[in-house]
């Protein structure tokens, strides 16, 4: 029997986006209006709290392994990724790239269209249609069909092996906290009163703001600043640090700065927004860079200054789960919390708040929680991408991390302007940098800045995950011409540097061991 209390306490469902067919379909998939929570099982093998990427991946993996699984979602399935993050942003970015290419048509030997007009409503309509389309494959009905008991409502732990959804108690053998993170609000005086958007609301806009201020030069800020600028908004991006994407390679961030400026974005690095106020129907933001003070007037503000883990109201104290507001839920390398029955995964506990990492952590947590696995988070080869134009993708560790760990490191860099296909595509900005342990071809990490860096990085991730050295990638045949040839070229450079052949130090040792002396 369904739990009427769970139905009654539902959070407001209606987003402020237009109530069109796409939105109705998305809601029907991700939180059906007529959904009735199932009668709970006496005890679940796994209760997952949070129905975003992490939670649904974990619930499906557990259910497919034969476990009795309950999934508790407070709001909408799909989480940040589908509803307010990866998917809607990529949909907008695709359209914005098209506009940029139209304006830049001469570069490709094509005519610039005579009248380039941005239909913002159409842009957003396409985004909503894509979101609705993808919601079909992670719908509540699909999860239920996979054998998962889906409960909508606020899940709150009541003890070390129990929680409650509304008035419905659920008992578990193991639980997984996957409540994700929410946008952080920077403590800027006047910001809240003046009004601002985050990633949770920007995709509900129905009109293009003529002037947009983006606060924060992280992935979200950079991606959306570029997209909205390409739609025609006069965009200013303010970044407290001297470079965008502070954790990325300096050269990557510099190429991005140049690309954003090329698009016409007013780039204000090393600058802080110290106050915001509303005056005459516009928002005035006071900026400070060292001793230089200025004020800009805008129509909308987007903040992208980070995300904070969603840990409130979960009853974690009752469950014996340690957490804090900054780090989120405390976990060990096996993703286990202080309560051995309870695990956490995804943004609620990880420093890297990326969808790819969340997905991988979900699988680790399920394996460790239900199958007695001993998989370590630290063993993950983590990868991510910022989908600006050019894209910036990374895997493994950075040079500064290697050097801080005392690892001698060397970087093989191939400029995209040395890659035939990139030249043919007029997509020469960027590089492939592959970091190896000095004197070997052991890959430590890589950064790619290229138009399609997110697609290119996978070959290196695969090599790292499989323990394949860089030289071996040079012996893999690739279709010609492709932009991924940059990786082959880096491999060839490594091979040459290691002695003009593809014989790596490991091979040398082996050859020496079997008494082979010729050839090199």
């Amino acid at each position, binding site marked *: 029997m369904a739990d009427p209390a769970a139905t009654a306490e539902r959070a407001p469902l209606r987003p402020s986006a237009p109530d069109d067919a796409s939105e109705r379909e998305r809601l029907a998939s991700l939180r059906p209006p007529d959904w009735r929570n199932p009668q709970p099982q006496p005890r679940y093998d796994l209760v997952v709290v949070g129905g975003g990427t992490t939670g649904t991946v974990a619930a499906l993996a557990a259910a497919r392994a034969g476990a009795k699984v309950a999934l508790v979602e407070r709001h909408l399935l799909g989480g940040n990724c589908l509803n307010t993050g990866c998917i809607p942003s990529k949909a907008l970015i695709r359209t914005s790239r098209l506009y940029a290419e139209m304006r830049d048509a001469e570069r490709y030997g094509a005519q610039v269209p005579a009248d380039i007009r941005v239909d913002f409503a159409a842009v957003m309509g396409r985004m909503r249609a894509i979101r609705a389309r993808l919601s079909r494959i992670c719908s509540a009905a699909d999860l239920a069909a996979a054998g998962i008991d889906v409960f909508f409502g606020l899940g709150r732990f009541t003890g070390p092996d129990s929680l409650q959804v509304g008035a419905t108690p659920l008992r578990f053998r193991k639980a997984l906290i996957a409540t994700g993170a929410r946008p952080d609000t920077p403590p800027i005086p006047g910001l809240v009163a003046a009004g601002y958007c985050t990633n949770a609301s920007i995709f509900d806009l129905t009109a293009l703001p003529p002037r947009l201020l983006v606060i924060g030069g992280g992935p979200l800020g950079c991606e959306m600043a570029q997209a909205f600028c390409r739609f025609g908004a006069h965009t200013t991006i303010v970044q*407290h*640090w*001297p*470079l965008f994407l502070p954790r990325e390679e*300096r*050269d990557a961030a*510099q*190429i991005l700065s*140049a690309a954003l*400026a*090329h698009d016409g974005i007013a780039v204000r690095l*090393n600058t802080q927004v110290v106050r915001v106020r509303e005056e005459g129907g516009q928002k005035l933001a006071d900026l*400070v860079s*060292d*001793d230089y003070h200025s004020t800009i007037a805008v129509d909308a503000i987007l903040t992208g200054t980070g995300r904070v883990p969603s840990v409130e109201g979960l009853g974690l104290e009752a469950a014996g789960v340690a957490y804090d507001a900054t780090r989120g839920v405390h976990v060990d390398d096996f993703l286990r919390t202080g309560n051995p029955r309870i695990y956490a995964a995804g943004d609620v506990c990880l420093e890297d708040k990326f969808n790819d990492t969340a997905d991988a952590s979900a699988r680790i947590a399920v394996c460790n929680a239900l199958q007695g696995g001993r998989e370590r988070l630290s063993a993950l080869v983590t990868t991510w991408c910022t989908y600006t134009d050019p894209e910036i993708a990374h895997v493994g560790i950075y*040079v*500064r991390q290697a*050097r*801080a760990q005392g690892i*001698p*490191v*060397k*970087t*093989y*860099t191939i*400029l995209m*302007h*040395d890659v035939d296909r990139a030249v043919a595509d007029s997509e*020469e900005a960027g*590089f492939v*940098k592959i970091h190896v342990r*000095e004197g070997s071809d052991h890959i430590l990490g890589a950064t790619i800045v290229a138009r399609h860096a997110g697609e290119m990085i996978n070959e290196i991730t695969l090599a790292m995950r499989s323990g394949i050295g860089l030289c071996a990638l040079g012996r893999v045949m690739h279709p010609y011409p492709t932009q991924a040839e940059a990786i082959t070229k880096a491999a060839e*450079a*490594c091979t*040459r*540097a290691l002695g003009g052949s593809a014989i790596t130090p490991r091979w040398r040792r082996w050859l020496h061991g079997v008494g082979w002396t010729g050839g090199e």
Partner: protein
Amino acid sequence: MSGADTGMEAGAAAAAPVPSTEAATAALLALGDDALLEHLQRAAIDYFLQTANPANGLVADTTREGSPCSIAVVGFALSAYTIAIERGWLARDEALARSLAVLRFFRDSEQGEAPLATGHRGFYYHFLDMHSGRRMWQSELSMIDTALLLAGALTAASYFTADTAPERELRAIVDALYRRVDWCWAQGGEATLRQGWKPESGFLNYGWDGYNEGLILYVLALGSPTHAIDPGHYAAWTATYQWENLYDIDFLYAGPLFIHQFSHAWIDFRGIRDAFMREKRCDYFENSRRATEVQREYARRNPLAFRGYAGDCWGLTACDGPSDPPAALATTRLRLFGYAARGVPYGPDDGSIGGWAPLASLPFAPELVLRTTRTMLQRYPEILPKQQFASSFNPSLAAADGPAWVSVGHFGLDQGIVSLMIENQRSGLVWRLMRGCPAIRRGLQRAGFRGGWL
């Protein structure tokens, strides 16, 4: 000289008619290499004689109207005077008087947190009023420019070693100035040295990581007898280095060419290695040679299709450049950067080349540099007004077959680095003086340098 610049060169209106720049440059190119270098070096050193204020010894940043003094240019001037003595271009007494004047100024000028002081904690503001010596343009208290000033002062102290009252005074002032610098304060509580500080807002928030021109700053900070930083702080800085294989060339990456030159103007890095260079089986001198190769490879590829770039026409560095496209090119989408640290291969690059930049790498790759310098002068004779290199030129900003855009006037840093590097190639004078400088030796040793002349 062509140009869309609005800058005015000081005294340009009163200048007597001179042979055309093109004709004068052509005459220079007829000389052999030694004579050509002699000529270019003397012209470069003339900059300091022409632009110094005799009253206080301060030297102008540029020849443009209203230019302030740049403290780094004073550092180059103090070194250039010793070269000028040795070459017979300046009497020892006059060079000594010029040097003493400016060193006394720095000794006696106001230090403190006042916004218009000359310096603070032994450091000096980047730009000073040529007459009053007070801070100008609300510039930053500059760590690196103070280091370049002190490098020049230490060169003078190493040169003027006679047991006479004026030379004893000079050495005492230099010692006092060096002892006064509070290098530890300049860390701002961090592991590495900060780039600058302002009384209005404190330490600058610029990322100054990776290999850069700060090498000599660290050496001086480590060698201080009074406020020396810890060797661990040098290690913290070198931990930000990137060793790259780029265009099939292994090198310690830094984009702008001047980074591979400035510390080398004073320190002979041949054969001495710190821990990083030992690991890489290289040294900073060889690295600077490789940097010229990287510049050459970039220019040969010329990925942004700028006019003029070639294997023998390169020099992306910190230099002046156009800010606005000329009217004839108003429709261009080219982004122009004005004065900027241009670099390879990641930019910024707007087609502007520092014509002097290859020559400032002369000791590293003499043959390549001379060939490149001759080619550039032959193709673009307009880049050598008054036989001194302009800060930059940009062939892409020119009407068809017209002369390249050329930066107006001359910049002291450019003349300084050219003066010193030609001398280091010709006689090794500045390197020799600084090899005998206890502060430099101590600083290098504390940074972990070993081998060679150390």
